[in-house]
């Protein structure tokens, strides 16, 4: 009797270990094979805007004060149900204004012209070509789409905040508490988030899917231009060809997709 119970426990223990280890062993075993099974094809809507690599150009010459940026920030935060939290520690922001010395902390210098020094710069997720947040996420809750957009799966995120430590641009926010009571007017078209997950700008992937430009671009009065970096005829490429533009922290090699014409 005693020995059979012991045997049963042994078998049960080994089975439990095996069940837990199976997906882990699978991934280790399949690392050399084709990735065909892991990336199912998603059909595009008939009106969807598509690109090889989405990018944004911020024309800072068209910005005078923080007032010009307010409608842009509001448009984004409103449609994405971004809560307005009083506690600065718990702040959630997808797009916001920073001074040059903060937004471009490694490129600032004493003698920069006065306009640039005091100009508010729009900062948001850079949808990096080589995104550190994607590299560190232990559950693939943050991932890169084939069109270059770095997205979050709010339902898979375990809230470990490794991505926040990895992001060199401070673009990510964490829900330190339930955000829903702090959303002024909920947009039913976009999910609200739960406490304990990370979120950030998604380049309006949900709007691109139905043929609309990002909300911030639409509200920007021409300050922001959005397009395909891979298409030499696109608006963003034309702007970059004829104007000198900079990116944030280029030395890190992350390859941001947001450009600033100074």
């Amino acid at each position, binding site marked *: 009797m005693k020995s059979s119970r012991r045997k049963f426990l042994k078998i049960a223990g080994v089975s439990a270990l095996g069940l837990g280890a199976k997906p882990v062993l699978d991934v280790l075993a399949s690392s050399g094979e084709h990735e065909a099974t892991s990336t199912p094809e998603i059909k595009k809507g008939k009106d969807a805007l598509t690109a090889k690599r989405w990018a944004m150009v911020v024309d800072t010459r068209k910005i005078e004060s923080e007032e010009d940026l307010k409608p842009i920030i509001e448009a984004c935060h409103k449609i994405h149900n971004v809560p307005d939290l009083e506690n*600065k520690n718990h702040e959630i922001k997808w797009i916001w204004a920073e001074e040059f010395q903060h937004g471009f902390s490694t490129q600032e210098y004493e003698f920069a012209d006065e306009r640039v020094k005091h100009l508010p710069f729009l900062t948001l997720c850079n949808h990096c070509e080589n995104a550190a947040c994607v590299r560190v996420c232990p559950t693939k809750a943050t991932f890169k789409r084939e069109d270059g957009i770095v997205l979050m799966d709010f339902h*898979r995120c*375990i*809230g*470990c905040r490794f991505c926040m430590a*990895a992001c060199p641009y401070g673009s990510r926010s*964490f*829900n330190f508490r339930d955000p829903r009571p702090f959303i002024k007017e909920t947009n039913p078209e976009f999910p609200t988030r739960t*406490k304990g997950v990370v979120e950030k700008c998604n380049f309006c992937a949900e709007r691109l899917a139905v043929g609309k430009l990002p909300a911030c671009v639409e509200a920007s009065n021409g300050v922001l231009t959005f397009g395909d970096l891979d298409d030499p005829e696109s608006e963003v490429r034309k702007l970059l060809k004829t104007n000198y533009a900079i990116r944030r922290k280029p030395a890190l090699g992350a390859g941001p997709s947001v450009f600033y014409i100074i």
Partner: protein
Amino acid sequence: MLEKALTGSKRYYGWMAALLAVISVGFVCYLWQFRFGLGITGMSRDVSWGFYIAQFTFLVGVAASAVMVVLPYYLHNYKAFGKITILGEFLAVASVTMCILFIFVDLGQPIRVMNVLLHPTPNSILFWDMIVLNGYLFLNIVISWKVLESERNNVAPAHWLKVLSYISIPWAVSIHTVTAFLYCGLPGRGFWLTAILAPRFLSSAFAAGPALLILLCMIVRKFTKFDPGKEQIQSLAKVVAYAISVNVFFFLCEVFVVFYSQIPEHMDHLTYLFVGLHGKGVLVPWMWASMILMVVSIILLVNPVTRKNETVLVAACITVFVSTWIDKGLGMISGGFVPNPLHHVNEYIPTVPEVLIAIGIWAIGFLILTALFKIGVTIKEEIAGLA
């Protein structure tokens, strides 16, 4: 053998009851955190890891340090350590358990923790940390238990146990290396972006862990009939002496590179920690205390006269433990987040519930440690015919 943990003196029961009381306070605070979210902690958008992850980092080191008794015994046949390997391994079991708990309480969505297994991601260092930590826990439970069992039955340990013991040696190094890789591979964090982070972690671990083990050996000697041995304690003390010296040397290497190169993103964090930045410097007295204590402990431990005096040795070990704890458990994590990547200086101070949850986990660790030591020591007493 587990039954040995269930019987004991009044003092044993009292100590365990006190730990349970501390654990329940921590547990209630955790329930609050579970309901409200991590907003009850002092963490913020800028300092997104805090006290929990810092304790985790420190304790991975304590766990890894079991190798400092296992290695001399198994690889160099240093027989004296045979008497205390079990204590080192039990300390590792308790420490790794605390590490896993600290990661767990730090999760925003703890009920989704199994996503790490369901969607395994080998490019994430956290994935590898999960593998090495659980593997190390498993190795130490199996090895310590089977070795103790064979000792009790007066038979030679099975051959495969020796194989597992050999595996556990590089594995111990791996847990702290992988833990350092969590931080030192991040592009925008100048404080951690240094190849010496893993060596620094290991050196401070091999100081803090054996220092704690010396203190535990002395407690065992005082309260039980089992004597871990004078030679053993002195050998461990030498390990602590050179590990803490190497740790300070590695730190000074870091200081040289950072301040001679004069690269602001690398200087800012050390400046913040040791003199303050933009008028903020809550950790400044702590960091200086840590450095001074490390130097004091080197003087006390390298000098054979003071090292051989056991009263001084106790003081030196406490000094080592406290100084390395401040270095890793306070400065190492929040120091990397201040200033933030946009060069804003937002400081971090843990809140009361956050500290109570952390103390609760430490109490769980000590509960496990006490129970395991009780089992080990009782059996050692039996073998020696003392019980």
